[in-house]
């Protein structure tokens, strides 16, 4: 494992604390996946544990609705000590799909426990897909076997990888592949833009945006179009059916919106797509670099410097409310590095950025552009973090739900990573929303502190 030491090229300190970080089980995202993906049925197969976590955890998250009506989430609970016959899981998947009308794809969430109980999830999914004649893909909720730590976003990454697998392969003739690919935004994008732009777009390299939130792609597409990049579609949790996914393969450029989408990116690369490795489009400079590098990758380099300067100028008053504030990132989703990078650029003091694991290859651009006075702590220890936060008394802590209540009770101001993600952190508009959220946080704390209780 990493020894405490310095990253190459900078003064950035990366420390491995070898602790057990506070990370919510990735299964918490199963229900969200089932509500966001309009045509999908999500089936969690495994022991009672998986079913319980996928069912219960969403209810404890901030702003979470109680059990929604007509949920598209089902569980296959396997019995202990009994190796299921081949095809049995597939039969249950088929049964589940029959019970839910308008199911256009199924995601079989099956991880380590199902494997240990003798289920070949890939085989079962293929069998179910053949019989149902809709795509059925396996989503592993657990982190990749070679990574020892888990991010709470691992299920999201793997679900996006499954969606990438569902994408059509590009044909050698790009012109043939392109017109069929509708834009995100469904109806409007499809009806308004298609015919007019078809000829022009067909000549350019198609760019596919990769990121869970459908809104993020919607925010970024116009920015990219403005820079002359043709966005042929996006792989997000907003696609209604597999047919609405863009084509991915040789000649496609895939632009991931989040740094934790390692598996999804690998899947796209395996198909021959080119994945742009750059800063995540979070924060002003991140978005600018993202647009520049994506446009360079499709051969129409554009400069975003002037535009970024304008955006920064527009954020001046918000920056004033964040400047000098001391921020601590506990780390649970993998989004911490870009968020910290942006806040440091905006004038905040980042005390520590925790991250359960550090994929140095994927995060190299982020690490390089992170300020030199920021400490990155890999595998941070939950209890150690609470001690350090108590000692440093930051102005705000960005953490997961497991640390939220204990820290608030100790008098710290906290926001969860989930809340940040919900407001939408991507693009120039996202940069403003991040600053607004923090400003709101400080304002509310001040007004509560001013109360004479």
């Amino acid at each position, binding site marked *: 494992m990493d020894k405490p030491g310095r990253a190459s090229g900078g003064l950035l300190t990366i420390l491995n604390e070898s602790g057990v970080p506070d990370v919510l089980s990735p299964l918490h995202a199963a229900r969200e996946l089932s509500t966001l993906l309009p045509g999908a049925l999500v089936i969690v197969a495994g022991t*009672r544990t998986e079913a319980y976590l996928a069912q219960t955890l969403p209810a404890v998250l901030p702003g979470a609705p109680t059990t929604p009506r007509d949920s598209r989430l089902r569980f296959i609970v396997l019995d202990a000590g009994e190796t299921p016959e081949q095809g*049995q899981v597939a039969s249950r998947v088929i049964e589940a799909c029959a019970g839910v009308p308008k199911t256009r794809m199924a995601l079989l969430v099956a991880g380590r426990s199902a494997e240990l109980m003798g289920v070949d999830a890939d085989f079962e999914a293929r069998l179910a897909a053949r019989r149902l004649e809709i795509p059925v893909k396996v989503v592993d909720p657990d982190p990749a076997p070679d990574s020892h730590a888990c991010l709470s976003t691992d299920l999201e990454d793997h679900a996006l990888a499954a969606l990438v697998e569902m994408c059509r392969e590009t044909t050698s003739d790009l012109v043939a592949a392109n017109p069929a690919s509708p834009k995100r935004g469904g109806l409007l994008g499809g009806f308004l833009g298609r015919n007019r732009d078809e000829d022009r777009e067909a000549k350019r390299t198609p760019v596919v945006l990769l990121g869970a939130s459908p809104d993020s792609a919607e925010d970024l597409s116009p920015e990219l179009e403005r820079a002359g990049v043709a966005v042929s579609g996006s792989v997000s949790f907003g696609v209604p059916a597999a047919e609405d996914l863009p084509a991915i393969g040789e000649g496609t450029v895939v632009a991931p919106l989040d740094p934790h989408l390692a598996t999804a990116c690998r899947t796209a690369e395996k198909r021959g797509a080119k994945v742009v490795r750059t800063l995540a489009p979070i924060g002003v400079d991140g978005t600018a670099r993202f647009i520049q590098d994506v446009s360079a990758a499709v051969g129409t380099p554009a400069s975003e410097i002037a535009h970024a300067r304008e955006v920064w100028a527009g954020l001046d008053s918000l920056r004033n409310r964040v400047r000098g504030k001391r921020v601590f990132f506990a780390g649970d989703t993998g989004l911490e590095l870009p968020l910290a990078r942006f806040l440091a650029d905006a004038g905040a003091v980042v005390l520590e950025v925790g991250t359960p694991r550090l994929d140095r290859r994927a995060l190299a651009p982020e690490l390089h552009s992170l300020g030199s006075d920021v400490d990155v702590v890999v595998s941070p220890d939950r209890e150690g973090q609470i001690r350090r936060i108590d000692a440093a008394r930051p102005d705000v802590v960005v953490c997961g739900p497991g640390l939220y209540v204990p820290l608030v009770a100790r008098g710290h101001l906290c926001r969860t990573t989930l809340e940040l993600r919900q407001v939408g952190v991507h693009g120039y508009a996202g940069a403003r929303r991040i600053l607004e959220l923090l400003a709101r946080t400080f304002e509310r704390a001040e007004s509560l502190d001013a109360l004479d209780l």
Partner: protein
Amino acid sequence: MRLLRGVYEGPGSHGVLRMAAGMRGVRAVLRALPAEGYFHSLHGAWARSGEPAPVHISPVWEKPKSSREPGDAARDFSELIRRHPETEAVLVVRSETALLSGEPISATALPDNETGRAPRLVACEWEAVGMGETEAADLALEDIVRAHARPAEKSPSPTVNLFGPPLFDPNAAAEYDEAKRLLSLLGVGVNARAPLGATISDLRRLPRAWANVLIYRETGDAATLFLQDEFGTPRVTTPMIGAAGTGAILRSVGDLCGLDAQTVRRAAWNELGTTAKLPWYARLQTPETFRGIRAAIFGDFTRTLGLGYALSREVGLEVGACGTYLTHLERDFLFHASTFTDGAFVADDPEEAASRIEDSRPDLLIGTHLEGEIADNLGIPFLPLCPPVLDHPFVQRPIMGYRGSSVLADLLEDALRRPRREQREAEPSSTELPWTKEALEGLEEIPAFLRGRTRRLAEERARAAGSREVTREALEEARA
């Protein structure tokens, strides 16, 4: 292998963690994959206190030999005691995935804590994949009681132990407090309460009590049976719900503590005049308020049975269906429930429970958070009084004891005051539109918990379209 739309209980490890996290001086170590971290998030949402849960993950994974990463059980335990020297007992529990990977039972010596004694390691050897959280919590409490209870003289004045619900049970603290208040009316003290808030020294002196009062039998059964066998402490097991149930408990405690029957009766009468409002509510309402009203109750063991008794006898509702998801208590449950209902059943599949409840055509539904939807679909009032529920109120109100009976009276008054449906829906075949064979087949494909609503919508559509029967097309439209 079963296809479910929800589960009522978590895994066994979750039950052990609930048990341990509610005690003091006890720490729990969960041997699990790194992706199985969740307890702190649940604990924060429920407890809403600053005290981090005394639960630690010791990850089970393949790791390089020279690694300093946590994961080695013995080293993780030592580290835990070093960081938390006040620890008196360590409960080790394995997640289902760890059990499946062949994780062995932890049998290792712990280093001394701050008192110079090594904390006791309780290893939960009975753990098995598929065991529910309630049964595991019951067995874990027995294990930890067995490890600590020491023979002792009975207390000079009468005292009892309270065995109540563990952490995360709705209103758990309020239920203990109400039981303690009632006992104090008789002059009976509480020797110890377990598991919620119990310290290790509480567990040590359990045998001093004159009797064990089980206010939550689900998780105190094994421990009190052990105390009965080993130390001869008698048990009181009647559900402490409703005025009659509570009175029965007070009389049993009075007998076991050698109290004068007159004293007990006076205390109970005094309460009936002041705090216990359920009997008063039942008398104030006209008989018509309750006549023909059918209740369905589904949930755990104690609350389901206690509410069943109270609603059927004290209030006079008809209990059309009464079920539990605790399959391991099936025999006991059916025996008790059959005294007040013909519709007793055991089911841990929400769809099966839903269809049993729907079939009983209830006017009032009491259940867990998974039953709310059924009540919505049937358009009847719903009271989420049985765990698991998702509410975690800042102010807890007991359901048990005399105070609980008044809370129940308020809830019932609110639920039953709403205008009832104009007419009881008759069987769909008689006064409603007839269904074609294809439509009926289609109805069968719909999950039971959605069937009621879909049936109504389909009939409305067919009527709006001027059709004389409900066709498959009308059904499909209603489903859309």
